[in-house]
């Protein structure tokens, strides 16, 4: 059986470009653009059970090696900095709760953010700043990028693992459960102590030490 030329062209382009190609760019190269989805289905099926799979991430298509082979392909593995637990939790919160502010992330994690999580995730290119939230201070809302989808092999942001579960249990709620209460406690109990200590230290700097 002979394969349609358009299908071959899509295959060849995806294969040769070695990175995800947008739907629009692919359609540009074929004759029957209206048949695009059928072509893609055909290719997907042809590679379903092979060493290479066709995958959609965001609005782009790519061939990538089948993930069940990962152990046999360690030879290609690139040395990567390991993500810290803090960064990993931050990434998960941004992915599931997006768009989300930094203080909302802190509320969910129950701890002030360590330096480095947000800028590290941005350096990898997995999160980005978006619009600002319309509350006092207009804080930046963070969300994930297309590169995040691409790297994790997700078709779109609604394909995250456990998403329905989390939603059903109410855990996608960003409300500050005990933070509001601890904020009260903090203001009453500790802030006065810690901050006044700090204040005193600052003043020390200006008293001549003779």
């Amino acid at each position, binding site marked *: 059986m002979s394969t349609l030329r358009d299908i071959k062209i899509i295959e*060849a382009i995806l*294969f*040769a*470009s*070695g990175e995800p190609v947008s739907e629009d760019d692919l359609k540009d190269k074929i004759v029957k653009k209206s048949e695009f989805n059928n072509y893609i289905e055909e290719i997907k099926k042809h590679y379903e059970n092979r060493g*290479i799979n066709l995958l959609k991430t965001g609005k782009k298509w*790519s*061939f*990538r*090696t089948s*993930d069940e082979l*990962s152990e046999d392909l360690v030879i*290609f*593995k*690139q040395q990567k900095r390991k*993500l810290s*637990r*803090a960064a*990993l*939790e931050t*990434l*998960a*919160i941004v*992915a*599931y709760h997006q768009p989300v502010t930094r203080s909302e992330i802190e509320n*969910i*994690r*129950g*701890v*002030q953010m360590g330096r480095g999580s947000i*800028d590290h995730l*941005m*350096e990898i*290119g997995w999160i*980005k700043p978006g619009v600002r939230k319309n509350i006092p201070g207009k804080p930046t809302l963070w969300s994930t990028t297309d590169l995040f989808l*691409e*790297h*994790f*092999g997700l078709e779109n942001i609604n394909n*995250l*693992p*456990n998403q329905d579960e*989390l939603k059903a*249990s*109410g*855990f996608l*709620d960003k409300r500050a*459960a*005990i933070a509001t*209460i*601890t904020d009260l*406690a903090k203001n009453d*109990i*500790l802030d006065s102590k*810690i901050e006044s*200590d700090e204040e005193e230290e600052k003043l020390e700097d*200006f*008293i*001549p030490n*003779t």
Partner: protein
Amino acid sequence: MIENSSEINHEKDQFNILLTGYEGPIDLLLDLAKKQKVDLSEISILALAEQYIEYINNYNKIHLEIAADYLVMSAWLTYLKSRLLLPKDEIEDEYTPEELEEALRFQLLRLEAIQKTSKNLYEKPLINRDTFYGGIEEGVKIKYDITYKANLYDILKTYSSLLSKKDSIQSLTIASSELYSVDQAIQRLKNIFGSIKEWTNIMSLLPNFGTNKIINKSSLSSNFVASLELAKNGLIEVNQKEVFGNIYIRSKN
């Protein structure tokens, strides 16, 4: 004394090591809770609060910067505990003990869910770790389209380093120009001491810089040093009657 301080350091380190395993107080609570029972929704909040407070109280000398969050939680749990133990109608407050308990339970369950999920997410086939792009370009005509590799991270990082570079340069300028130097004080005192025949409070001789604290303080210390210098050279006399008392100077002639 030395022994003592090393002991404190040791304790401090120990506490910090124990805490660095945790990503904050909720994470610590979660760990304690898991040890107590498998099903978090049935956990005894009172028992958990007691465990946490005990855990934190075991360490007296702690590094405030690291432990502030943990101490706040400890204070909050102490409060919760007292609310749970006291008769209900005795305290009027915004929140009922049950609400507080429920809030903590929700916080714990939510963080647990996020932690599990973050693991699941990271176990997904990740590009260049589990799955790879490839392909061979031979036989294909390739036209290169030059793009520039800068991304938003580069811009933010570059701008941040410009800001800090600028900051440090600015502060250097201010530091050097705003202080009153000893040389300046000596010059000034030399010009005026001839007219100071009577014992005069040095404070009344200081140049006035208004409310600028830094200059005033630097001027006070520079003038004091300058007066000692001039006294050493036999030009003036300096007199102070009591410790922390006023300092008087007069011309030696």
